[in-house]
């Protein structure tokens, strides 16, 4: 006898049958068990051909029906489940207790999701999203926010895209926290491949990879907006770190707002194209990100986040000793990438002195080289 979990697995693992198709199928067959019962064949032909129940309209195509027939065979289901088990992929249907409760808030919550690794726990989560081609400012701010939140036991939810997404996940991991990513393809399809190392690091450090698409599904462009709704649903709070006008990130924001979640955006200069959407969001009522500690206390109600800035200042003083040029050079550094030339000019330090003093900051982790000769504060 088949368990309901297996039934859901069979239905959800069909290639080319998507959530909306499943919704229509279930409307017709009323309960999933009917798809597997004595009347399986009758239901299948009804779905493909149309019947009174469907107002004479076909619900799915013949190909889809054939796929459904194949995947609903018990042997096929057990074979696939075994295969997934070997690959460390779990399937959670809405009826599974492990199914993330946060997803149920969605009207169109997936009938089942695939998970590699863990699922986010009940502890606070925070979604962090943004541009793929981010600026040095977006990068360093994302690193800072993600690190503080992760240290405060907030689970970072993101999409593992290039740029902000990956930076947030990486930073959370190196701060010793957990991060969960929702992919736009199957959980075993690493996309983008540049983040292969991140993918495995997330798994190694107790995080998780989630997707509503069956393993092996390629990452297609149209799937990403749907993926974004899961990111929004999984996040208690959504932070937008950087976004251009008409950025894809805005779709995540839209979903979060539909669900009544709070959205915070990182303000930027009005002239920076990468801050354009962020600033617009703030004008339209999104929260304004100032310090990560503030977000942390919003999420956890704890005020432990120490003023990191003070710490920095102390570190600079410790490093530099009594050298006034060190202070001047640090003041000349910015969150925005600046060339060593500009930094030296602003600090009014001779080139050859600046050329070695900057290494102080880099070695102490107070500055970072983002492109040859270009530095930012960290």
């Amino acid at each position, binding site marked *: 006898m088949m368990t309901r979990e297996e039934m859901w697995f069979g239905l959800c693992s069909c290639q080319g049958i998507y959530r909306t198709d499943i919704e229509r199928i279930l409307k017709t067959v009323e309960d999933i068990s009917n798809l597997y019962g004595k009347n399986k064949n009758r239901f299948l032909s009804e779905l493909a051909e149309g019947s009174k129940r469907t107002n004479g309209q076909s619900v799915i195509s013949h190909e889809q029906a054939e796929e459904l027939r194949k995947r609903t065979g018990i042997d096929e289901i057990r074979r696939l489940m075994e295969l997934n088990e070997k690959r460390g992929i779990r399937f959670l249907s809405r009826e599974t207790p492990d199914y993330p409760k946060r997803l149920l808030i969605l009207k169109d919550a997936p009938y089942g999701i695939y998970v590699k690794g863990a699922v986010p726990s009940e502890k606070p989560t925070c979604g962090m999203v943004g541009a793929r*081609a981010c600026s040095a400012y977006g990068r360093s701010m994302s690193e800072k926010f993600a690190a503080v939140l992760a240290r405060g036991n907030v689970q970072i939810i993101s999409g593992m895209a290039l740029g902000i997404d990956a930076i947030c996940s990486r930073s959370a991991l190196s701060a010793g926290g957990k991060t969960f990513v929702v992919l736009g393809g199957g959980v075993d399809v690493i996309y983008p491949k*540049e983040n292969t190392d991140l993918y495995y690091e997330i798994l190694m450090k107790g995080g998780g990879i989630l997707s509503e698409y069956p393993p092996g599904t390629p990452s297609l462009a149209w799937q990403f907006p749907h993926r974004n709704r899961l990111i929004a649903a999984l996040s208690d709070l959504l932070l937008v770190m950087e976004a251009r006008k008409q950025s894809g990130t805005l779709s995540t924001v839209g979903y979060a707002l539909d669900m009544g979640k709070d959205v915070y955006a990182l303000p930027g200069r009005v002239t920076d194209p990468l801050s354009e959407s962020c600033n617009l969001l703030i004008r339209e009522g999104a929260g304004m990100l100032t310090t990560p500690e503030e977000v942390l206390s919003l999420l956890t109600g704890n005020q432990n986040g120490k003023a990191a800035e003070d710490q920095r200042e102390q570190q600079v003083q410790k490093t530099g000793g009594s050298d006034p040029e060190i202070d001047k050079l640090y003041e000349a550094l910015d969150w925005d990438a600046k060339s060593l030339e500009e930094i030296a000019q602003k600090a009014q330090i001779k080139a050859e002195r600046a*050329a*070695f003093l900057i290494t102080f900051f880099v070695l102490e982790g107070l500055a970072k080289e983002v492109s*040859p000769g270009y530095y930012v504060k960290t």
Partner: protein
Amino acid sequence: MFCRVFCADILGIEARRICVEADVSGGLPGFYMVGLPSSEVKEAKERVLRAISNTGIDLPPRKITINLSPANLRKSGSGFDLPIALAILGAMGILNPAHLRDTMILGELSLDGKINPVRGVLPVAFLAKEEGLKELIVPEQNLKEGAVVPGIGVYGAKDLKNLLQRIADPQKDYVKSADLDHVLTEEKDAYPVDFGEVKGQEVAKRATMVAVAGFHHLLYVGPPGSGKSMMAQRIPTIQNPLTLEECMELSRIYSVAGLLGEGPLMTHRPFRAPHHTITSAALAGGYLIPRPGEISLAHKGVLFLDEAAEFKQETLETLRTPLETKQMVITRSSVQTVFPADFMLVMAMNPCKCGYYPDRNLCCCTEADVRRYFGKIKGPILDRIDVCIGTKKVDIKDLKSDGRPMTSEEMRRQIILAQKKQQERFSGVGILFNSQMGPKEIKQYCQLDREAEALLDKAYQTYNMTARGYNKTLKVARTIADLSGMEKIQKEHIMEALTYRNAFVERL
């Protein structure tokens, strides 16, 4: 009748003596040439015969045989026309062969008897001297070049008619040979550009100075309009002046390439900036009869590769061996040709495809795009780059600032001092510059105090450096210490060297 004259052929930057023998005999009239002539030498027949007849000499219909010896070497070049003509005239009895016994002859003929310039006169002049010949006849336009070598009489021939008169003339006077002791000092400061014109790039200029002082290869990374090419162009102005020996070697290369121009010698360090569409053969040297490529034309000077990322991979790859051995060996069927190629490699590239990263107001490249762009210059070439510096776009403020930028003269003075220190240190070791130090020399000459050592250890871990990167940092730090006149490498020197490391490009 028979006549033999001397001539020369160029192989690489060396000349080889060739004997041109002419025999005029009875039998069916005709013109035969043997001794492995290449096609341009074979064509000499028509030029020689027409030139002689247009000079007003009637050649009787006889059988003419020309032999070029040694017969087993392939002869190429157009310089054989004149010796062939003179050998024929000698064999015909029109001129006295005894007059040409101690003479080396070189020149291309026009149909009207005019003598045209040829390539490679300088090495031929040296050869003539070595062979103990007394006289050298070259085309008039090559006279200055030939007259560089002292102790041999050089005559510049304008046309065949004048030449024949002169050969018969017992009173011979020659041009004065060039004054080699002064040829270098006279023109030393004649660079038309100066580093003082580069404004608002003091950090990059400092890095350039370090690179030149230790003969480190250099990479500029920066947006368009950040003065990369401008600085590269000015590097020869801060290199130490050429020595006479270097000048001669360089002039030979230019003579062979036919690029010597007006002056008889190359008195300046060359700056070569080939376009990125250049082929491997043009860069490294080659063709059927090997000719010096850009890397040899940049000998003792700067080879500048602008838009380095746009060069074809295989083209850049050809630089690997010459960078190591300082010469280019070209092998063609039976002959090996060696061209010297001891150049400073200076490359420039944008930080990304569009050129503006990390300025996000202008650049939309993704991180992957940026990484891919840097990846175009592959490890083996990057490994040889010791100094890498980012340049910034110059803004109007810099152009108008009245601050006094460092001039070439100041930079050069410091560089010469630092190089003197290196030469003292390495005398007897067989190297000249810090960049050429191997692991053994690094161990011996790059000792650090405890503080500096701790710092480098920390950097090694923080930057995830490789052993090669570690050694490079030490070598550059050695140069920086030499620039500041210190015997021991200090902490600051290590830190500055770390700023110039190209590990960033490597890591991406």
